[in-house]
């Protein structure tokens, strides 16, 4: 469970103080499927970095599963990232020249776990890459690379996966496949999935859309995900009012 109260992040650029986040309150329950939307510079990446324990807020409180993150040291934050969180990035962020199997096993390496290969193979099978385990990033398509990244995010059995523009570098067909994988993780494994995006298509795919602007949450509404709207005829769908901010 994620709980943010009055979270503020201030960057000091030269002598100027810039508030990237300005008093954000947010509650996310376990198993949610949500998106954080906003234009670039809105503070959505900063919010994701704080939720992802990559960064710390300047003011306010952040509780992850009831633990106040502000009180934790660097090593404890690293441990939280390793055990509770999974990251998926727009540019995949795979290590070059490393096979998919080793790539996915990395989080377990930093945990000091044994049986890493087996867990890694299982995660890759789950994202549909059972036949690509020995491939290196350069030998995989964009969609396949993103699936490797997803497998790496989920191999440690996290409670939350944070995805930063996960389809930004993919074509629309591949994007839908990748979004399907996230949906599957959410529905079948109960993992909380949060997207950070500026794309409507991605936001509309989730059950909750949080809009952020100038460091503040301006809208937080539930959404009927597009995959549940498929029964509605195409003509009718076109007449439905648009949801979410532009």
């Amino acid at each position, binding site marked *: 469970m994620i709980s943010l109260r009055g979270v503020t992040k201030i960057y000091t650029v030269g002598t100027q103080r810039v508030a990237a986040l300005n008093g954000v309150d947010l509650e996310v329950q376990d198993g949610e499927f949500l998106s954080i939307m906003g234009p670039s510079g809105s503070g959505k990446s900063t919010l994701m*970095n704080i939720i*992802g324990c*990559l*960064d710390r807020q300047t003011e306010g409180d952040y509780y992850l599963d009831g633990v106040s993150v502000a009180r934790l040291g*660097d*090593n404890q934050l*690293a*441990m939280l*990232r*390793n*055990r509770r969180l999974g*990251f998926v*990035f727009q540019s995949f*962020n*795979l*290590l*070059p*020249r*490393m096979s998919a199997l*080793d790539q996915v096993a*990395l*989080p377990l*390496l*930093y*945990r*000091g776990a044994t049986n890493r290969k087996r867990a890694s193979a299982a995660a890759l099978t789950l994202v549909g890459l059972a036949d690509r385990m020995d491939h290196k990033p350069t030998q995989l398509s964009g969609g396949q690379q993103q699936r490797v990244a997803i497998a*790496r995010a989920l191999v*440690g059995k996290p409670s939350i996966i944070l995805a930063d523009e996960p389809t930004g570098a993919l074509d629309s067909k591949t994007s839908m496949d990748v979004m399907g994988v996230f949906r599957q993780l959410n529905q079948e494994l109960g993992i909380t999935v949060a997207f950070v995006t500026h794309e409507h298509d991605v936001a509309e795919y989730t059950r909750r859309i949080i809009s952020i602007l100038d460091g503040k949450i301006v809208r937080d509404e539930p959404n009927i995900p597009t995959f549940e709207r498929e029964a509605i005829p195409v003509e009718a769908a076109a007449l439905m009012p648009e949801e979410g901010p532009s």
Partner: protein
Amino acid sequence: MTLADVLGTAISSLGSNLLRTLLTMLGIIIGIAAVITLTAASEGAQQGVGEQISGLGSNLMFVRPGTQEEGGIQIPGQGVSLYLEDSRAIEEAGFEYVDSIAAQSTVGGPGDFISASVIYLGQNKSTVLLGTESSYQYVRDFYVARGRFLTEEDITKKALVTVLGAQVADELFGTEDPIGKSVRIFAGAGGFGFGFNFTVVGVMERRGASANTDQDDVVIVPLPSFQARIAFIRDPQGRTNINQINIKLADGDKVEQAKEDIGQLLMGLHAVEEPDFRIESQSDIFATATEVERSLQVLVVSIALISLVVGGIGIMNIMLVSVTERTREIGIRKAIGAKRMDILWQFLVEAVVVTTLGGALGVLAGVGATEIAERFEIGGETQYAITPLWILVGFIVAGVTGLIAGVYPAWRASRLDPIEALRHE
């Protein structure tokens, strides 16, 4: 992370970019190879000198003329101040610790302005002409192998007989027996000189070459025959200049006393306040040679160590570039849960693995280079002796270099902010 995990990570990272790894190692490979080869050469030379000097014979002392120096430069042939009469005086003084004495005079030695050569059936060999007494072979512990040495009779009769060094006999006669053959010995400078026919009566045993003289490349004749024929070794007062008095002591413990007594005697004879001669014992020469070798070794090792330091700086350089180049990788690793220490260890172990591997390759290269140098006699007859100690030192120095060179880049890598690192292109 266990040590095995850290090692595995480092090795797979190194293996993923072989060219970079090889370039990183190059400095260390060359450095260690240089240490091994250079120390092998200097160690070999030292052993060679040791053998040579102990081969001179035990309890040996030499009296030599003082060398005149001008501006620190020794002038050979100048300041001759040792005479056959000095040798006789030492004999007559009857010091109880003096076993035997042999005076000698040479021409054609290194740095001598007079050259000597020996001619047989049109073959001309440049050599060292040594005039001495019958006691020489006993005093120098250097014996004749075939035929006979010079006798008292040869000395008193100024006989035209000669004993050839093994090298000279080999070159001029090959398989032919030189005993009884007549050779022409020539000594002179700038085209002027004197040549006489001598009969070969013996061939010396083989002694081997030392740092600057080949003891087998010599032609030995009776000292009086030599004096009588070669005019320019006599001084205006009719005394006979000699190069060296070889003194064999009955008791090695009396070296210092002998130096003192003989020094006093000769200073009295020469009527001088300061010695115009030098008295050296075998151990003095050994000490000097050892000192020379030691400073040579210090020089050699410092050159090798400098090349290692340069190699180490090269490694640090490449590691720093590598940290910058892999900033994103470090960001990813941190995002998925790598702690600072994990990153620090990864880079540090990478550096140590690279240098240790480089050290191993350097040892192989050094041993190989030494073998090649020995087989093809690069550096003449230089002896090489590879010492396990220096192999070990090379290894350790390589590892430590890696550790030192790796610390700063690894620390930099571990301090990177994950967000900044992930944003890095």
